[in-house]
């Protein structure tokens, strides 16, 4: 399955990769993991060597926006090993990352991994809550539309098409205007304390983050269910006198799950990127806001680390989805298409 981008159109599948008809599960896993590692390796090359496209003194680049004293320049040269050849710098960097040493933040004057660990919980909670909204609301809306032809279907489809075009930052503004300013139901800023307060603070951001994806999920669910509903096995199940809920949940929804799962893997990884914008808007202290601030404060080590984390999550999510697919639909593992 091709890696697709969150808001962008689904990438057409690679024409070249044809599954061999007798791919054993283990071989499939190994090949997927191999592709994952190769992709991550090249991604790390891009992230690391990106700063070499700028000519000039690398130490001065890393200390942009600051007034570098000679000792600071010497320190940064030593810390990044700037006096060594680029290849060696890369291996030091990637080796450090694999060992949990992510370098030092210029802004925070502490190790990048400490800064990240402080920030990670809020982002994970935000993404998790958004994922709950997406799966919950998206599935329900999609199922409602699919099972109620006519007025409901049209209404949901139109709503969902409009909602799908609302970028997260616009959703953030609209939700703030309505629910925080006009109605005063939710706070407009900050991540609150642990527990219920956190949930209350994260509701609007999670909705803003999720709105595009709720719409997307609803559309995929609707079309996937619609396709299943026309299948013979559903007709057979209905004519055998099974209850409607049994038909819907055991026969339609279960078979419709494949495309839904593919989409959700990509979506959840994509949420990490959009969370940068939503966290910045709502003043949440997660890694997304840290990314924006670090770009603003020219703290390049932190930027590199967060970009690498998000790319890893993105690629990993796609691999996991690829590996779970055969468990849901064994025909994929057998190499035959599911339709």
């Amino acid at each position, binding site marked *: 399955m091709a890696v697709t981008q969150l808001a962008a159109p689904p990438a057409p599948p690679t024409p070249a990769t044809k599954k061999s008809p007798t791919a054993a599960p283990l071989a499939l896993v190994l090949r997927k993991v191999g592709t994952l590692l190769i992709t991550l390796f090249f991604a790390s090359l891009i992230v690391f060597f990106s700063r070499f496209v700028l000519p000039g003194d690398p130490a001065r680049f890393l200390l942009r926006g600051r007034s570098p004293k000679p000792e600071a320049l010497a320190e940064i040269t030593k810390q990044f090993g700037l006096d060594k050849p680029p290849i060696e710098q890369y291996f030091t960097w990637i080796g450090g990352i694999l060992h949990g040493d992510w370098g030092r933040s210029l802004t925070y004057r502490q190790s990048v991994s400490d800064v990240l660990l402080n920030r990670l919980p809020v982002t994970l909670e935000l993404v998790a809550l958004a994922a709950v909204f997406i799966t919950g609301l998206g599935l329900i809306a999609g199922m409602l539309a699919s099972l109620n032809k006519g007025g409901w279907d049209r209404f949901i489809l139109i709503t969902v098409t409009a909602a799908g075009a609302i970028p997260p*930052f616009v959703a953030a503004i609209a939700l703030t205007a309505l629910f925080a300013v006009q109605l005063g139901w939710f706070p407009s800023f900050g991540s609150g304390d642990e527990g219920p307060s956190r949930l209350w603070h994260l509701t609007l951001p999670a909705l803003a983050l999720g709105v595009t994806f709720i719409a997307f999920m609803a559309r995929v669910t609707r079309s996937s269910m619609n396709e299943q509903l026309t299948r013979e096995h559903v007709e057979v199940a209905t004519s055998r006198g099974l209850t409607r809920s049994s038909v819907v949940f055991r026969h339609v929804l279960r078979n419709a799950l494949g495309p839904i799962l593919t989409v959700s893997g990509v979506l959840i990884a994509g949420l990490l990127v959009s969370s940068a*914008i939503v966290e910045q808007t709502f003043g949440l202290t997660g890694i997304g806001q840290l990314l924006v601030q670090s770009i603003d404060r020219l703290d390049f080590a932190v930027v590199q680390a967060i970009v690498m984390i998000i790319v890893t999550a993105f690629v990993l999510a796609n691999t996991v989805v690829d590996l779970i697919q055969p468990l849901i639909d064994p025909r994929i593992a057998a190499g035959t298409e599911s339709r």
Partner: protein
Amino acid sequence: MTLTGTLPLLRTRRYGSLLSVTGWVAVTVTLVVVLLSLLAPVLAPYDPDFVDLSSVLGGPSSAHLLGTDALGRDMLSRLMFGGRTSLVGPLIVVAASTVLGLLLGLAAGWTDGWISRILTRVFDLLFAFPALLLAMLAIAIFGKGLMAPILAMTISYIPYVARLTQQLVVAERSRPYVQAYRVLGFRTPWVVLGRVMPNLVPTVGAQSTLNFGYVLADLAALSFIGLGIQPPTSDWGAMIEEARGALLGGHVLPALLPALVVVLIVVSINVIGEELSDRIGGKLS
């Protein structure tokens, strides 16, 4: 060449026209927004940067049709001028990624050897970087503004165009007309660029239209979080950011208007793009 390639599409069996009513509404909205932005220097009632502290946060009135922002600047004029900066970025990205994607896709689809394999791998790798993330990395290196995100997003969107082109070319290669040109001894570049490419332009164009909406939203988002176009330059994303203070104070209009324009244009572009690809897809199958 392009013209003859697209002309048959202007009529389809069912509707007798390329787009549905909704589609034409979307086209009209897009054209109005584009024209208002293009003609901003002529039509705008005020200088978009003219600060008038005596009419701060005024509602819509005969003097200011859409009210004024926190610095008393005319909203309508700022929206019109903002359109220029907000639309030119996506335009460059879509134009560049379409041309480069087409060429790379043709190369990847037409050849069988290592060129095709390497290009396919490169496309796969680029898919691992969400466009917005690559844009942020580029801003971290080249600095804030429009240049870095335009560069990064062009690179990000090339594989979307290229992979689609590659698939279409692979299908096209085995078509009889291509075989015929080959047998007749026409040179490959002439066949590929002159005869095959025009057949791909409509489908790729529909995809690029959709891309325009996504790029516009992403660039506006970057300006909104302060990494793209910098104030006081009027840009829809930057305008929303500037109006956040007023929003929290209960003045909704200065933030909501540019947000509305962004949604309006993105919805319109999506409708156009999807209708185009539906029509063309229907025709091909």
